[in-house]
């Protein structure tokens, strides 16, 4: 099984990651940031987006359209591996900045699910309840946890 991803850098505390998307729109710097939101159970939020070239902050509503969404998601999946190995394999909450973006995450997760399910447990929230990820379902949010 192969999962194409970008090389990526991590901060020394493994909470911040960055990589470059490369595609039809050029080279775009991406950020992945983990932040703890609950102690018991241990849950972190995953924030993802472009780096604002002017001030270095995270932009989560920019649409890059760089034709590499699946490669980006695979790279994020790899950062989850690094992060989880250093923080006790917590639950990681993932949701798009818009409903449309969450739906795109859903589609990308479905594409790589067969490859990541041996490594990660993925759950989705829909109709008022959490359930284990199903490819043909639409979710409001996701929780990923390294096995």
């Amino acid at each position: 099984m192969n999962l194409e991803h970008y090389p990526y850098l991590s901060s020394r505390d493994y909470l911040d990651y960055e990589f470059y998307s490369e595609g039809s729109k050029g080279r775009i710097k991406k950020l992945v940031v983990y932040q703890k939101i609950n102690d018991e159970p241990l849950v972190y939020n995953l924030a993802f987006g472009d780096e604002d070239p002017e001030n270095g902050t995270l932009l989560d509503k920019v649409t890059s359209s760089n034709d590499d969404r699946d490669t980006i998601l695979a790279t994020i999946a790899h950062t989850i591996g690094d992060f989880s190995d250093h923080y006790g394999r917590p639950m990681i909450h993932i949701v798009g900045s818009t409903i449309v973006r969450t739906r795109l995450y859903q589609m990308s997760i479905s594409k790589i699910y067969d490859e990541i399910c041996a490594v990660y447990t993925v759950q989705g929230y829909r109709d008022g309840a959490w359930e284990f990820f199903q490819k043909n379902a639409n979710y409001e949010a996701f929780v990923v946890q390294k096995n």
Partner: protein
Amino acid sequence: MSTMKREAEIKPASLGGAIVSNSVKSHAGDPVVIKKAEGAKAFFKKAGFPKGKLSTFNHDTRG
């Protein structure tokens, strides 16, 4: 294909592989990161937490 991309064989222990760098700065105080974390906290208050990974879970999603 970009020279920046590479193929990675996925094995249970192979996801990961970050290059640690002092150049990666913290975004813990980034307004968007804080806002998303607060949004996540509010979401879990409404939705509750999932039960977490279950060793007995059947990963078959072909249905």
